């Protein structure tokens, strides 16, 4: 047990100490590579010092892509729903920088085929904010939208990329869509150990991968936490 405790990330004293507005968002505060961060109940990550909001795996345009490929015509509302939640989060924390951790679009054509209203909406969200698109496996290369297009990004002690790397340190990534079961229900979750943080998928039409899947339990160090989303973000030992 002591080994596990040694490897575990320490929760910071209280979420309230980090930022006055965190309590309102039901966030869970912690430190990673010396930086103080807050996992929001919505599944976004808030970095108060940089006034930066990080979201992962938006998968915008998913229903359009499935229909285009001859699949079902899913309810075409997921892009609106995702952006609505993002807008709400941006307003709640007054973010001045936004990082989208990859798979922001379900594929390149989906990025190019976004309805005009959605493009306008994105432009509106980007106004007055530094906006970075990290490449994902679904959306490699830059897309024709404002903002910086990056393979990965370093800021302070942290590195932001889409897929976690085995030796990553201070690494913030997405890709796996982690989820965990707590009190009989399944919730999207952050996974956190001493060297890395994996964000849950933020997009409305996204599924999840159990934290006990070998892909995740093999990646996360002993003593890792799962921070489950919902009405309030809450940490627990990561189910393996």
């Amino acid at each position, binding site marked *: 047990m002591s080994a596990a405790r040694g490897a575990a990330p320490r929760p910071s004293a209280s979420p309230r100490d980090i930022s006055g507005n965190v309590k309102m968002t039901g966030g869970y505060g912690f430190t990673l590579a010396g930086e103080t961060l807050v996992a929001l109940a919505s599944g976004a990550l808030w970095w108060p010092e940089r006034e930066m909001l990080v979201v992962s795996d938006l998968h915008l345009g998913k229903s359009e892509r499935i229909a285009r490929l001859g699949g079902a015509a*899913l309810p075409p509302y997921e892009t609106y729903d995702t952006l609505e939640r993002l807008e709400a989060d941006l307003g709640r924390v007054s973010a001045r920088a936004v990082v989208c951790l990859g798979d922001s679009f379900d594929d390149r054509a989906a990025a190019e085929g976004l309805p005009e209203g959605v493009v306008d909406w994105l432009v509106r969200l980007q106004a007055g904010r530094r906006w970075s698109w990290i490449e994902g496996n679904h959306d490699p290369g830059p897309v024709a939208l404002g903002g910086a297009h990056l393979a990965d990004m370093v800021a302070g002690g942290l590195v932001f990329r889409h897929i976690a790397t085995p030796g990553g340190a201070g690494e913030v990534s997405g890709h796996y869509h982690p989820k965990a079961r707590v009190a009989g229900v399944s919730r999207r979750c952050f996974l956190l150990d001493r060297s890395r943080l994996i964000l849950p998928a933020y997009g409305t039409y996204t599924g999840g991968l159990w934290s006990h899947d070998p892909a995740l339990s093999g990646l996360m160090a002993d003593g890792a936490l799962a921070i489950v989303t919902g009405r309030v973000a809450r940490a627990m030992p990561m189910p393996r």
Partner: protein
Amino acid sequence: MFSPALPPAFEDWFASRGWQVHPHQAEMLARADDPSLLLIAPTGGGKTLAGFLPTLVDLAEGGHHGLHTLYISPLKALAADIRRNLSTPVEEMGLPIRVEDRTGDTPSSRKRRQRADPPHILLTTPESLALMLTFEDAARTFAGLKRVVVDEIHALADSKRGDQLWLALARLQRLCPDMRRVGLSATVEDPGAIAALLARHPDPCDILYADPGPDPDIRMLETEERPPWSGGGGSFAIPAILDEIRRHRITLIFHNTRAQAEIFFHRLWMANEEGLPIGIHHGSLDKVQRDRVEKAMVQGRLRAVVCTGSLDLGIDWGDVDLVIQVGAPKNVKRLVQRIGRANHRYNAPSKALLVPANRFEVVECVAALEAVLERDLDGEPRGPGPRDVLCQHILATACAGPFDADALYAEVTTAGAYAGLTRAGFDQCLDYCATGGYALRAYDRWQRLVQDGSGAWSLRDPRAAQLIRMNLGTIHDSDKVKVRMRFGGGRPLGEIEEHFAAQLVRGDTFLIGGRIVRYESLKETAIEVTRASVKKPKIATYAGTKFATSTQLSHRILRMFEQDSWPELPRHTAEWLALQREMSSLPQEGRLLVESFPFDGCEQLCVYGFAGRNAMQTLGLILTKRMEEMGLDPLGFVASDYAVLIWGLEAVLDPVPLLDRAALHEGLERWLAGNAVMKRTFRSSAHIAQLLQRNAPQARKTGRQATFSSDILYDTLMKYDPDHLLLDITREEAMRGLVDFGRIEEMLARVGDRIDVVRLDRVTPLAAPLFLEVGKVPVEGAARERMVEEETERLMAEAGLGS
């Protein structure tokens, strides 16, 4: 009695076997030209031969090219069984007839050949037929078809598999205008309803009745051991059941659920010291395992088989001479059909034993026995054909080539189940198939179906045809995960529910196929297990239908409760009922009993509605929703056929306002918004209407996070498009299937304002079994959030991480 129409070769053949043509077989032959004909006959009445005689006689003369008769059965195994049975007369009389079967298990090379060069008689399932009709060469495949025989039609008439079949028959009839329809059915409560489904609407359909044979020899098993207070396994009766197995040639032991069959088989095997050959058979076991058991049965190498509904239908399982039903029969009609499995000789009584698994079931078994002897069968009318099946049918039609909407509408309404479909209703389904049918017209560029200049509809993307074909069918229970051994070549054992698999951690043990295995790891599409030798395994949950106790049977039980004493019941059960009457009260037909008591750290509320499992489940949903609003902090509930038990943090001392009729109706309306049962109903319809396509040509390797829950689609539609067709269908489905609000209405009408509230300081005899029911439904409310908080804090504290 020989029919004058029977050719000499057939007369000789019957005579050589010492057989007589039954009157109903002769009449079927005499009326071979009826456009539709329904035969009601008991098991063992030569029903199948009656269905095939006109075909064999017609084909005996030779000269027919191509398909002559299509035989549809609800079971793949039945198709294979009939092929073997037909080969005997065909070979012995030297008839020029080619007979083949075609199911999901048929190799694709043979399937292709069958489409190009069909046999005279093709034996298949509704799903395989639907698939054949999606190919462009369907008209050529079915050219010349004269007859279609639907076997075990009573089993199809209750399900969407039937609805899919009635639509396929309408298509076949258009391709082959002279096609005659024959239905073969077990005894049912409303033969006219089945005849209306079988016939081309509005053609008439006569019904023939075979001699129903003698009354069954049926009783309740007397055991030295008393049935337990609760539980559903029937383990207490194992010594007595082993005695019965020894005394009979082949015994079928039916269970209501797969999980119970597993536990029972495991315990039976432990007690089987002399090593009697006993097998297990249920729908979640691997096909190879099931085949082995079926073969051993037919060859008479097994003395008993522990089984579920997977053996309900009419396969000739050898010389079965005893049927044992473990657990309450729930439904008198199905019980009668199961009993018929024993003794396939015509005009010999079937022998059956009922084994109630607990004391409540003793009451239900006695009530069911009385109903069987009075030939009082039960059943509920099914209502019009569901539109999710129609949506799938429209998509499947498009796979076969361009179609005209007017012609398709005309064709669909010749199916009895869809005779009342309005053109507007049809157009709504067509629009859903073409564009998704959303308020937001998002798919102009990517429509699924497009119209050409002449107005004909076809698939925009030909790739879609493959996807649609791969996802045909109406059976979509829940997600399942395969189970296989880690070593020895990864032998498949069967499948378990994904929900159950997700809760397993390495080292957990569970039962499957009668053996205990240890969970080792999750591979891409299967979980790997190893043998384990522990005493108390977990119990896997298996997808499988849970039947609700019928209205008629429920009423019989309530009427029994009103007696002063129960001489027809075993003493232990009579005493138990007396104890309940003394401690609290017994439910009555014209009153509603509600108990409230603390237990297990929660406040419990038990409502004895006797409206069947599904309706009681609905009542639980509505009541917990109302309790949430009233600040009574409900945590969850569990429903049985006779009661719903709700637990929460606050005692409900005055439940009368909760049960107010108007409030329940309002609850039904508002509660439709967001609960698990509605989502389950939606998921099933979304799969059938192919809004969700589970099967893809190549499943993505990294996969599982790529698929997302249908709950998300449901929530999205509720939020952005609440009038969408699929939500309409979901509400409609909810009225009959899982929700069954009709039976809540029936309960409310029955009890009026006669509600008896009893507050106690402990659990009552009648409530106790509910604590062991599976299928507990959590309430996603404030109390749940409190529990999430408490559990995460506890886990953190245990890990030494508490703040």
